[in-house]
């Protein structure tokens, strides 16, 4: 039986992914400043 993603799951996944991507961008920006 396949498990379905609830709205809560989706909101959470999007939020977590967005913050993770923003952190990666911030690390990249730090690299630009340093180099």
């Amino acid at each position: 039986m396949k498990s379905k993603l609830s709205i809560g799951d989706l909101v959470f996944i999007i939020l977590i992914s967005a913050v993770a991507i923003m952190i990666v961008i911030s690390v990249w920006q730090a690299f630009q400043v340093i180099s």
Partner: protein
Amino acid sequence: MKNSANKIIVFAATVVFLLTLGFSWTHTDHDMIPFMNKVFPKAQSFQKIASSPVLYEGKIKEQNGKEEKIGYVVIEQAVAYGGPIKMVTGIDLQGKIVGTVIAAHKDTPSFIDRVIDQKYLEQFIGKDITDPLSIDKDIDRISGATFSSRGIAKAISQGSHAVAREQFGLDVKDEVQPFKFGPKEITVIALVILMVIGVTFKQKKLRWVVLIGSLVFIGFQYNTPISLANIAALLMGNFPSIRENLVWYILLIGIPMITFIIGKNVYCFCLCPFGALQEITAKVGGGKFKCCNKAIEAKAAKLRYILIYLALIGAFLTKTPSFAGYEPFATLFGRQGFGIQWLILPVVIFSSFFISRFWCRFFCPGLIINEIILRPRKYIMGILEKGIYKKAKLKKVQGIKGTEGIEARSANELNKIEVKE
């Protein structure tokens, strides 16, 4: 099959980690000539005359073709907040500083920007090589970049004093920094003591007193929470002077020792100023958003391993500990963020109103660092327990329980804090 693939990945990741860490300990000598020309533009050539510290004579060519010495350039470094700062300083034959410039640094870029923007280095021009160059006496510090100001002054004074001794034959001693023990150190020590009392005697109210005190003082007042950048500095061997930065040692050495002795993640739950803010926002907003099933949440919590790994590798490769500090702490407490960090902070704070300790549970390196401290403790305790059981001649010896649960337990503890109170 999957198991062995995982082992290979972990092994490869460990090898890369150790190689890059080793690289961060190596030294690279940049070409200093452009910096030497900058501090001593009159000199037409430079001749190296000493190595410790690195010292050059600046020379000009006279009309008869002979070279004449017109001064010295000394290269010296000192540790600032995030790492060492290398200073190139020009000195004329009268023993006056004619120019100084930052040749290389591993400090937090925003601190260095502040120092340069506020023309801090101009204060040193015209100073005598025998001057102690003490902060707040001879030189005014730059507010918000105290450690960088100190590191620069120390590097310049050490270099110029060496020239005074070796080239001018003067009896100049480097100023021994007095042990700095002021309100900052007293406050942090008091909070740590209260934290230990609170944890030992399970005083929930005291825990809140410490958390709020930490938010105000370790956070907003002194902007000195433990960050991944500090851990990177520790791994890379960038230790600041204990006389000037006792708090660094209390938080980076003292807290892990307390964690090991007590066997609990004391910092995250009881002292972290950002954790305190997260708990307060969860109180206000409810923090009860039950987003998804535990499996998704557990997978999301693994994300930070990748983030921390990448941030540390980046710090090692660039030899810049501050590179690893991806947390929004400095943005909030020191208003020192840049770029997208100003977006991360409101998103994290907003989310923490609805998801209990949002940052702590999914992004903060704190839990992993505590896991690294508690894992060997659990192993040692397991061995000790085994020995005790053997002595008691018990037939059934309890094995060492797996340590995988530490992180999950930490997350559970975070949740329990919210539920219980």
